């Protein structure tokens, strides 16, 4: 398995190209150019995709390219790609947050109630991994009645959380030992780990987010 951020040398095979819109399904070309159907620029097939393609196709833009390891509220260690196959609704919070996070968590619950579909996972990533241990995340899950298979709480390393926040375009800053400023963004990924929608703000109308999630489950 190729890891994205470990310093191993990837081999340099000849690159193949495909249409990002997949106008002709999984067709690949040997040279750069544009798609004969939609005329979009062809994009190179990534080396690591080829390795993974026998199991599941992972695209260039997929968060499943990240190789960081995360602890769940059930004290299991996972990589994000283990979440593939479900639509993912992700948010970054911390459990000691008294201001925005309870509202963000309520927004997540509201979305899950309206979506009501088993092919969706709701993922809450802690921006305070030093305090939010799997035990604390578990207690938080129980307290918020989110202790089912559909809810995943993740603790990472400080560096991996910073990297993941960049993937979500979430900004955050520690302002005191138990307090952070952070953006309030709920992100929706398709089953292949590609970002499809972001809902910004607190307590906003989630109709668009809900319909987006439902369309991605099909």
């Amino acid at each position: 398995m190729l890891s994205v951020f470990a310093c191993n040398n990837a081999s340099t095979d000849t690159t193949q190209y495909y249409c990002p819109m997949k106008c002709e399904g999984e067709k690949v070309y040997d040279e750069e150019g544009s798609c004969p159907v939609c005329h979009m620029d062809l994009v190179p097939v990534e080396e690591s995709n080829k390795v993974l393609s026998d199991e599941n196709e992972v695209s260039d833009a997929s968060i499943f390219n990240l190789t960081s390891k995360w602890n769940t509220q059930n004290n299991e260690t996972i990589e994000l790609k283990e979440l593939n196959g479900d639509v993912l609704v992700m948010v970054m919070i911390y459990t000691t947050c008294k201001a925005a996070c309870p509202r963000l968590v309520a927004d997540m619950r509201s979305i899950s109630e309206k979506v009501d579909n088993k092919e969706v996972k709701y993922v809450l990533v802690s921006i305070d991994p030093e305090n939010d241990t799997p035990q604390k995340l578990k207690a938080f899950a129980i307290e918020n009645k989110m202790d089912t298979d559909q809810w995943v709480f993740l603790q990472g390393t400080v560096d991996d959380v910073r990297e993941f926040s960049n993937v979500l375009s979430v900004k955050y800053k520690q302002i005191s030992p138990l307090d952070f400023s952070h953006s309030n963004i709920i992100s929706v990924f398709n089953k292949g780990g590609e970002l499809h929608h972001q809902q910004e703000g607190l307590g906003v109308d989630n109709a668009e987010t809900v319909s987006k999630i439902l369309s991605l489950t099909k």
Partner: protein
Amino acid sequence: MSLSAISQNTEIIKGGTFVPLYGSDSSEVYVRDFELDVYPVTNEQYLNFVKQYPKWQRSKSLSLFTDKNYLRKWTSDTTLSSDMNLNSPATNISWYAAKDYCVCQGKRLPNMDEWEYAAMASQTMINAQRDSIFNSMIIESYELPKTYLKTIGSTYKNYWGIYDMHGLVWEWTSDFNSVLISGESRQDVDTERNLFCGSASVNATNLMDYAAFMRYALRGSVKANYSLQTLGFRCAKSINKK
């Protein structure tokens, strides 16, 4: 890894406290001792890096980590354009790529407080934040066009022996996305306040420090896959006390 072995390209920055433009609770920040590259990473060094790690070549890099401007001026995966200087700072590089470059050198990106701490040193003073000559030198350098084409080491050597902290390129920091302002300051209106929890804490300690404000505004406006022509990087290293 030997902790006493300092690679030839870094200098030790002796830690201390200072008040950054956007600090924790707008107060003093403590920076530990650390090592910092003497120069920004150059085109030549980055070229060697992508030869060694082909996954960071332009055609092979993932769109999750690099936008379309990544290494935009290069004529092939391993060729700089003819007008690029080997000893100019490497630019058009995303945060993910810069971060991985440093990891592959056994280093890391400096965090924002470390970078600002090292950058506030003038030729003679550790803290020249209130030195009007130093500040106007920085602001004047921001006004010059195409400084990314200059050669590393062509500006000044600061108190710590570090070159080019101002005057060539902006530089990535590990936690650049902790700046909770939008790049377009006119967008920072009340309707945006819901986007950020604790937005009240985001106040410039000293808006007079215009040069620093420009750096933070840039950090607040970029995303990690952006690859700008005016944005380079250098690496840092922690010093683990025994």
